[in-house]
């Protein structure tokens, strides 16, 4: 039983890390209508910033500074925000699908940089011996995992609280106004470009934080951690959970990652090993079918957007 518990601790940790990514995406897409198809790129910037700053020094690497993990986490957010600002400053004027194509291209570029800038990123061999958060304070893996989960829960709670505050403020209402009708928002004197850029930078910084937390948890990073499938997963989570609702974003992370893993366990439990290869194909079909079914059942996500968000009005 303790084994099941410690697996669930691990599972919950992955869900919370992905949850932070989806919260970031929700700010961008759910509230502001920015079609970011390069989620994994910002996740990668955060992950690599953390790894490069905290990895134990190694000859032949220009990074590997061996800094403290807390510094790594903060720097990951800061560097990702900076990168998002630079990228956003150039691309944020693009609408809808144009921004999607651009951001997808940027994410692929970032992954290729991590693959090819060997001196900094370790190239395809990646980086290891990272400064794992909390690792020094706990000697058993179980204690480390439990403590990490608590830390993640605290971070997610903080992020959730902060986002809710922001989105229920006038600032948040402007984002929605831009999403619904940018021209009308501009006519009311709002600087749409500035608001879009702010939402883009904050959302991306959250993705970077999640990347750093993931890499710190695993203790190893390589370019193969940042394949485009992660962007797809984050989108599936947001849409299934409920775009425009932060609780929906977190729930979506839980449900979609749950489908991903439970289907795998179900296949192993129900089929003999001789059919495992066919079962794995069935698992992929199951994941797709479950996502389609969820969307047929609840087209606006499990928890849709709230109609009224201001505490000054009652409906």
């Amino acid at each position: 039983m303790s084994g099941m518990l410690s697996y669930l601790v691990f599972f919950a940790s992955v869900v919370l890390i992905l949850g932070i990514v989806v919260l970031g995406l929700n700010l961008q897409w759910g509230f502001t209508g920015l079609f970011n198809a390069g989620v994994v790129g910002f996740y990668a910037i955060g992950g690599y910033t953390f790894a490069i700053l905290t990895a134990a020094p190694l000859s032949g690497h220009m990074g590997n500074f061996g800094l403290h993990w807390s510094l790594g986490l903060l720097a990951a957010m800061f560097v990702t925000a900076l990168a998002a600002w630079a990228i956003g400053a150039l691309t944020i004027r693009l609408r809808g699908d144009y921004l999607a194509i651009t951001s997808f291209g940027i994410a692929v570029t970032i992954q290729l940089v991590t693959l090819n800038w060997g001196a900094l990123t370790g190239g395809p061999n990646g980086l290891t011996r990272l400064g794992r958060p909390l690792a020094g304070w706990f000697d058993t893996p179980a204690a480390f995992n439990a403590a990490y989960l608590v830390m993640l829960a605290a971070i997610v709670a903080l992020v959730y609280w902060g986002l809710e505050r922001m989105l229920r403020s006038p600032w948040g209402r402007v984002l929605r106004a831009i999403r619904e009708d940018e021209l009308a928002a501009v006519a009311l004197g709002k600087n749409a470009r500035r608001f879009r850029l702010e939402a883009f930078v904050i959302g991306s910084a959250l993705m970077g934080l999640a990347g750093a937390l993931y890499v710190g948890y695993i203790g190893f990073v390589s370019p193969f951690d940042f394949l485009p499938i992660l962007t797809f997963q984050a989108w599936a989570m947001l849409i299934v959970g409920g775009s425009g609702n932060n609780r929906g974003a977190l729930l979506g992370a839980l449900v979609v990652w749950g489908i991903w893993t439970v289907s795998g366990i179900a296949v192993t439990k129900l089929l003999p090993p001789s059919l495992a290869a066919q079962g794995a194909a069935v698992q992929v079909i199951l994941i797709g079918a479950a996502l389609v079914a969820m969307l047929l059942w609840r087209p606006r996500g499990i928890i849709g957007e709230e109609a009224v968000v201001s505490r000054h009005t009652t409906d």
Partner: protein
Amino acid sequence: MIVKLSFFLSLLALAGAASAQAACPVKVGGILPLTGSMAPITKKIAQSAELAFEHINAGGGVKGCPVQFILRDDQGQPTVGVDAAKYLVEVEKVPAFTGTISSGVTGPIISAVTAPSKVVQVSCCSTASPFTADGRSGGYFFRTIPTSKTQAFATASETARRGFKKTAVIYVNTDFGKDMLTFYRQAAGKLGGDIVVEVPYNDNQTSYRAEVTRALAAKPESLLLIGFPKDAVTIVREWLSLGGSKRVALNNSMRTMDFVNGVGAQHVEDFFGMDNAQVAGANVDAFNQAFEDKYKTDSKGPGVHTQYDAVMVLGLAMNIAKDLSGPAIKDAMRQVQAANGTPVGTGPAEYKKALELIKAGRPIKYNGATGPIEFDVNGDVTGPALVWKISGGKIETDRVISIEEMQALFKRVE
């Protein structure tokens, strides 16, 4: 009263027996990319693992228990692979597992599961050199496939033997591809042959015209292509259609009919490549025969033989280990190849023989489907290599480079 008591006692004894039985079956995990870009080569590898567990069970299992093989799919995704490993170790309580193929998935598993949880991991196929070299695995990671170095040195000696000059190298930009290139460059420098251009490529693209054009711009007379079958089909087609030389060397992954048929058999005549040798002999034949009998297809393909050995070595080590904990199994892994041990081979009968020897406290020496398996201090194996070539639309073995030749080769290069 006495009857009642004895009945009660026998019930107790039964219950006791049942609880002793509760440790059975012994669970061993497996993680392989059954879906995703590796799926075409994984099918036979998974079958090979399954065959090995069948042989183990037919030959007496582990410590008197049958072994249950729990196989999970990693989809070629690191997060999914780590989740599968965590599930196997925590929920199913496996003390050891075999897997996986992509180094990008094996790396995070070693770091997040294998080393901290102290379970034994034996891979059939992950060749990235740093995994065993820098102590990150705590000694819990083993592999039955010689690292890229063996293959790269063998490739260099073969291209030198065939008089390759002005070679273009197109390689997949992964740890595997980079290792292969680095070791090939090192060996080619000593053995003769020169590289005119090195072009990395990223996998799963629809076209490689840019890479091929860049390689051809250096006017190469021959090509060494290091990569995976699906992309290699595209690359070779573009290479040939743009007028590239038909002197082409390949790596082990292309030793599959998917590659030959993908390009078209008539175009790849006389292409050759390396693989870890299936040393000839009774043990290898026994494995090949068993594989063919069960799956009605030949056992040729990357990873098939190394996967069988990975599982068999694990089975033997688990019997030698004083208990079924990860550390005990780790310590037993090197005892399957005792210098003065009685040789044992592949198949259920040989496994049974090995168990009897172990029970009698005598040392054993396992000669597997890839020849003698001897883990060095890092958990790596060295092994013989073979040269294969495509002839008449079929994949044939050209010649074998024995362990002795390989050792001599290592001395010349290093």
